[in-house]
């Protein structure tokens, strides 16, 4: 097996929000199979800079799968072919020597492209603002055992809290729906005692915000779950559907 790869990259280039954008093809040579996908792009960018061309813009920060910045479509799959893996964690050994790799930004009306592979995901921030918070009393830290949380609930809540907000669920969904993201946030807080005061208001407002950001509807195709680097389950979507129904039946109206 070859330890270095020569690759052809087809990358979406778009100079700004309003530019038309197009695919451009680049060759990179001698890519180590131990490199991460982002390191491979770094090599490309070094090359482009040396040639006096604009480097490819892509979001990244932690490069260890926790910040959720590095999403891109790799050969038509969000974060590439691996399960529960972000682009920064994807190794080049997953690719073949001589392969062509198509790299596109997330595509959703709610996530406009800012430049090349970078999209504006502030729609997610606005969904969080609509209800992804709890009310706490200020003052001293409470005694640790004042709010007992059943083990099962704590586990489920933390599973949902693992969401890193990368947007792969939206990108991979054929409808560009943000249900998995929103459901993860709703589930996380609905399962914990700290989240109870705003429980109903939260789900109603977050869903209203999600809709107004013009994400698509959920068709229960479950591609989101398969693309999620944090392994969020579509069970959270079922929970949100339940929570929302209960809240609306209780007469809670959205109030953004």
């Amino acid at each position, binding site marked *: 097996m070859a330890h270095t790869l020569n690759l052809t990259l087809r990358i979406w280039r778009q100079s700004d929000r309003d530019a038309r954008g197009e695919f451009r093809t680049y060759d990179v040579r001698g890519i180590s199979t131990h490199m991460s996908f982002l390191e491979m792009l770094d090599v490309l960018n070094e090359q482009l800079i040396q040639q006096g061309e604009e480097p490819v813009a892509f979001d990244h920060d932690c490069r260890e799968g926790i910040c959720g910045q590095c999403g891109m479509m790799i050969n038509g799959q969000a974060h590439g072919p691996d399960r529960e893996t972000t682009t920064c964690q994807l190794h080049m050994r997953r690719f073949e020597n001589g392969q062509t790799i198509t790299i596109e930004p997330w595509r959703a009306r709610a996530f406009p492209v800012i430049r090349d592979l970078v999209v504006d995901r502030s729609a997610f921030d606005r969904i969080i603002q609509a209800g992804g918070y709890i009310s706490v009393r200020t003052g001293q830290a409470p005694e640790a055992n004042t709010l007992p949380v059943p083990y099962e609930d704590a586990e489920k809540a933390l599973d949902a809290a693992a969401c890193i907000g990368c947007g792969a669920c939206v990108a991979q969904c054929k409808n560009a729906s943000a249900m998995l993201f929103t459901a993860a946030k709703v589930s996380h807080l609905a399962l914990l005692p700290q989240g109870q005061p705003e429980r109903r208001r939260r789900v109603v407002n977050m869903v209203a915000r999600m809709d107004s950001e013009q994400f698509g509807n959920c068709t229960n195709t479950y591609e989101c779950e398969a693309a999620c680097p944090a392994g969020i389950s579509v069970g959270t979507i079922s929970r949100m559907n339940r929570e929302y129904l209960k809240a609306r039946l209780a007469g809670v109206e*959205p109030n953004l």
Partner: protein
Amino acid sequence: MNVSLLAASTSPAERWVYAGMLAANLVLVSVLVGRLGSSLAKKYVMSLTGLALCGFLVIHLIGNAMMLFGAETYNAYADSLHKDEAALKVGEFALLFLFVAHIWLGLVTAGNNRAARGRRYDEEHVKRQDRTAGEFLAPDYWMLVSGLVIGAFLILHLWDFTIEGRPDIGYSDKTPFEKAKAILAVPWTKIAYVVGSVFLGWHLGHGVASSFQSLGIGNARRNRAIRWGGVAFAWLVALGFGIFPLISAYL
């Protein structure tokens, strides 16, 4: 021979009643959809109407099964449906409502979903590992297409059996049993009914389980049962309805 059966071919007046029902339902549903504030509410209505229609399919299939017991039983069943004409019309109105609401919402959400993507991907592949083979046949990617085919089939079916508008079938001198046999004896109709049944099964292969998820009934433990139950029901419907056009000549 029951006289009422011989007179069962729909009169022009009755056709106007059906046209009125359809118009009323279109108005009703347009008002309802306008009042559904959120994407989730749309999905609830989609699911509830879908599941209710599945309930209707079960009753319909039981009705079909009467054919297996011979002309007498089937005609008696058909006649019993027409005992109370007013109640039947109410039932038909409700049924039409379910269809109109389901189809309307299907079209609305499909439009939203297309728009939500914006520019399409140049390359797009599934990530579900249980989907990598035969991904292009997965019913959830084809709900709009299968739904439209079923809708077209529904129009034909209603034209054949409810409106009784087929010029090639002499309705007026036939019992319900004879009508069904005559309609299903036409080769292209036979094919259309089998195709309709298959598409219906395909649609339900995703629709049933999906409805439970949209209504928030599923959870990790129940989901397997719901999924397989949905697929089993889909097969039952496809085979159950699809078999009659094939065996009608022997009944």
